[in-house]
């Protein structure tokens, strides 16, 4: 536990460590996800023509960049043992506000910071309520979800197209690595977010406090860690990243719609869980969340390639994977005790 670089283990540590180098328990869920990902990719390549194209893999990133950003925020929240149900609604609110203001002729340079600020403020508000009034995160963010979704419906019930030059430029800009091999700017933004998030979690005092709260909030408090500030910050980060995810979604869709991103909170939670973050908090990696998002994206890609399977199979497969990974988590954490 003296290794500063590694995040602290969940509350209970293993006594009398074996000298023999064994597989770290904390890595098992992530490795399982990695194996699953490799298996799915292998199956895809074996069964479908053109599946091995590099662009197929890159498109998974292109189509899920916004989910990646939102899931990164959710990872912070779940690592503290909380949950944020408002992310999908904040994403929708962001697209609606951005589209409305842009259509009213506001400059993009003003709209962009404003929508990010709105999401951040909502997150901050929920964090404050959760911490100071000791309201369950589940309920406080549920209220935030109603609020954000209701606000966006109030602003406009219809889908609003975005024609702003900056937005369309961001939507069409492609970073090319070769003929037919490209990623969108959203992917770059998402990767920057992930790298920054991973750095913060692994190498900063704030990041270690996040893990400590998830491991045991009372111990963290007794250790003199800034539990309150960190907890509020985590929901603020989630709000900010949801708004950023909303911006990326509006790049992707070039429209603002109050019914965008319905159920995205569930996708984000599923990605985090499949990525091996322990739901009670305190253990897991942002890298795992990236793998979780990739698994969700690959499921959709495979279903598209298959063509005959209906889209609702996605839900069933995601449900089965959720079940499998949660049971795996239980086994891993139980053996550690």
């Amino acid at each position: 536990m003296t290794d500063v670089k590694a995040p602290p283990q969940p509350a209970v540590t293993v006594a009398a460590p074996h000298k023999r180098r064994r597989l770290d328990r904390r890595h098992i869920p992530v490795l399982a996800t990695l194996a699953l990902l490799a298996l799915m990719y292998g199956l895809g390549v074996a069964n479908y023509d053109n599946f091995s194209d590099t662009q197929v893999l890159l498109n998974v990133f292109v189509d899920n960049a916004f989910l990646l950003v939102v899931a990164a925020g959710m990872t912070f929240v779940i690592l503290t043992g909380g949950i944020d149900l408002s992310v999908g609604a904040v994403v929708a609110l962001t697209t609606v506000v951005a589209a409305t203001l842009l259509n009213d002729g506001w400059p993009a340079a003003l709209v962009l910071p404003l929508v990010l600020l709105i999401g951040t403020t909502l997150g901050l508000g929920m964090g404050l309520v959760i911490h100071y009034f000791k309201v369950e995160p589940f309920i406080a963010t549920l209220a935030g979800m109603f609020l954000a979704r209701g606000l966006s419906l109030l602003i406009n019930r219809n889908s609003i197209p975005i024609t702003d030059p900056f937005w369309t430029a961001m939507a069409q800009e492609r970073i090319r690595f070769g003929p037919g091999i490209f990623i969108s700017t959203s992917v770059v933004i998402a990767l920057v977010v992930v790298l920054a998030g991973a750095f913060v979690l692994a190498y900063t005092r704030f990041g270690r406090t996040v893990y400590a709260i998830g491991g045991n909030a009372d111990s963290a408090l007794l250790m003199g860690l800034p539990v309150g500030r960190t907890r509020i910050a985590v929901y603020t980060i989630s709000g900010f990243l949801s708004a950023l995810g909303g911006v990326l979604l509006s790049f992707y869709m070039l429209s603002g719609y109050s019914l965008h991103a319905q159920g995205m909170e569930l996708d984000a939670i599923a990605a985090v869980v499949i990525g091996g973050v322990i739901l009670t908090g305190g253990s897991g990696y942002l890298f795992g969340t990236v793998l979780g998002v990739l698994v969700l994206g690959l499921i959709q890609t495979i279903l598209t390639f298959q063509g005959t399977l209906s889209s609702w199979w996605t839900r069933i497969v995601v449900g089965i994977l959720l079940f499998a990974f949660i049971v795996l988590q239980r086994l891993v954490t139980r053996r550690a005790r």
Partner: protein
Amino acid sequence: MTAIVKHRLFWPAVVLVLLLVSNVFFAPRFFTITLQDGHLYGSLIDVLRSATPLALVALGMTMVIATGGIDLSVGSVMAISGAVACLFIGDLSDQGSVGGVLLAVGLALVLSLVAGIWNGVLVSVIGIQPIIATLILMVAGRGIAQLLTGGQIINVSSPPFRVIGAGYALAIPVSVIIVAVVVAAAVLLIRRSALGVLVEAVGASPTASRLAGIRSRGLTIMAYMFAAVCAGIAGLIFSSNVASADSNAAGNLIELDAILAVVIGGTALTGGRFSIAGSVLGAVLISALDITTYTIGVPAETTLLFKAVVVVILCLSQSAAFRAAVFRRRRTPAVTPAAEVPA
């Protein structure tokens, strides 16, 4: 007088009455109930009728929340139950046969029961957090319902099935009677036996109740089974009312409304003490809110905003920390015990 004001259902009841009264300004005939063709008609009856699926789901949710859990899968269970019943009835050679409809209803309820056992086992045997355990069925369940119906809306034209959600008996809507019977049975079973106390014990402290010799595992599974069956009945009422099974619309977001109804009814989400009457009142309140926004003429979706405000106010009023902060200002500082100091 203070006893009435201090009753935990006083404020929800006041809000309900205010909501109903506010309708009169927009629809003068709001409170008139007329008897036509032996059926009661009127806005108040509409409020009750539209509250029925939610009241049932909230009833089941109350028991789950009392054990310290939560059930997110109720909407999916509603969809599965409606889909199964409509599929079965659609395959009948004579859609009007009462026996066939009863069989369909039985099949739907058995499947709901299985869903409840699944949730209960995940929570109490495998030990997964309730939010996540039921999230699995919430995600997969709607997929299963869509798989069953092939993604289509299954229409049925079965008079006996239609009775469940849209029929009348003794001038009262059958769905209201069903809910009344289920609620009465639940109250009788839970409050007239030790069951309610045991459930409260499990919710208040699982460890203490286990040490006291309560089999919390069985009780928890039973609570989830009860919630799923309630959701199953609600699904039947919903699909019977529209004479079809729509796997997307059935029970969409009803888990959130149900949780809201339970919270309005004064049951704390942390488990322990619960109030069945409160949850039913909460369900009627939400239904009245929906109908009020409709009569006033604001877009139906803005009820979400109202709900957000209601959730915030209720949660703050239930939060001990918030009450301490508010009342500290009113009293003299010397008397107040120090509020829990947040770090």
